[in-house]
């Protein structure tokens, strides 16, 4: 009886030890927690559905990582966010993995009759944009400044928390026009009409990705980043309308 009890205790202790070791070490097959810009929602989910994603505005995700959120990978729509975290030692060295462009979208019914961005000046328009701290909101300000059209900001009726919210409002006809990424416009192409932003006024939209320093699964996190940078990852991004990794200026 005593022997059986001792065996049971040993077995229980061994089990506890194994469990403790297992929880402390990364599990090769455990899904990663990936914090990614809202504009990456569709492409990341279809590219690798095995991971846990948290999509949102890059600036909001940056704040969450600063506050200790348990992310393994951070993918931002603006280098500003990743670089700030890198300087704070909260993510490892970020790499650029894709690029994007801005577009103006209007509801299919186009109640304000917008045919060109310059029409925003002359027509009564309910303009929807993202907040200035959100990457797409900052890029919107750049486009308008480059075109000499910042005055149309007086027509903004709503500042949204991320690009998906802007897209949704225009698709539902709750605004006359909104600035989004080309890739988001594609996702609702049956509900909106795209008005091109001229190439000369485009902001430099770069996406960066990095391993979160506190990740307990850095090897797998790095492997995810490698797969995004691989031919397969780049093809998935290209098929979703993203642009190839830009060349560095000569």
């Amino acid at each position, binding site marked *: 009886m005593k022997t059986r009890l001792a065996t049971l205790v040993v077995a229980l202790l061994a089990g506890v030890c194994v469990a403790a070791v297992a929880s402390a070490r990364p599990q090769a097959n455990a899904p990663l927690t990936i914090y990614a810009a809202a504009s990456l929602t569709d492409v990341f989910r279809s590219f690798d559905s095995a991971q846990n994603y948290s999509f949102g505005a890059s600036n909001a995700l940056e704040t969450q990582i600063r506050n200790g959120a348990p992310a393994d990978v951070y993918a931002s729509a603006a280098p500003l966010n990743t670089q700030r975290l890198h300087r704070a030692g909260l993510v490892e060295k970020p790499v650029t993995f894709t690029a994007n462009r801005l577009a103006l979208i209007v509801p299919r019914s186009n109640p304000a009759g917008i045919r*060109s961005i*310059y029409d925003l000046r002359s027509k009564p328009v309910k303009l929807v944009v993202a907040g200035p701290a959100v990457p797409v909101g900052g890029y919107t300000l750049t486009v308008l*400044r*480059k*075109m*000499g*059209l*910042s005055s149309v900001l007086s027509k903004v009726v709503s500042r949204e928390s991320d690009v998906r919210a802007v897209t949704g409002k225009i698709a539902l006809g709750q605004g006359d026009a909104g600035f989004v990424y080309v890739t988001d416009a594609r996702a609702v192409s049956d509900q909106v009409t795209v008005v*091109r932003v*001229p*190439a*000369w*006024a*485009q902001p*430099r939209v770069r996406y960066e990705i990095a391993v979160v320093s506190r990740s307990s699964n850095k090897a797998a996190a790095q492997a995810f980043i490698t797969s995004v940078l691989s031919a397969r990852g780049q093809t998935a991004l290209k098929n979703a309308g993203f642009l190839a990794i*830009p*060349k*560095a*200026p*000569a």
Partner: protein
Amino acid sequence: MSVIAGRRGHGVGKRSLDRRRFLLATASGVALAGIQVRDAKAATENDLAYANFGLATSYLVADFYSRSLEAAKLEASTRPALRRGRAAATLHARELTALLTGAGDTPATAEDFTFEWPVPTFATAASIRRTGTAVLRASLGAYQQAAATLTEPTYRVLFASLSASVAQQVGTFTTAGAPAEPFPLALDLEAASAALEAFLG
């Protein structure tokens, strides 16, 4: 006649030096040495919009010249003019980059653009001439408008200079005997942008 002694002991007449500099600047398309563009604090957003457009257009024009040279469809006698045009476009881009940097902007680089030239553009001399004329006229139109309407006087001088340079270049692509255009059309930014949208990508 006063003489400027060259550093390596070559005597060079001032007049001939000035003439050479003038010819060089003219060949490059714009006499940049004479332009004093003030720090852009006084420039309005509209002034800078023309600068951003002009920068993209300069990269476009430089790319057009490079491809025209590669295609080698125009008469061999035009090659020096094509090279001078490309050099002028490069200088224009450099000047506009400096202007935008001075204004606190992050200017575009050539790598930010993927220019789109319709397939037959460089296939024949005629299509090169047609496209070259269209691209240069649109940029000339915008520069004329800028020279006349911008707020900052030194910007107006720069755009007047760019207009003169581009007007010279248009001649490269017009066939002999083509009528001179008495009043090239000034274009506002919206119209000029629309005219070049297909090429700018």
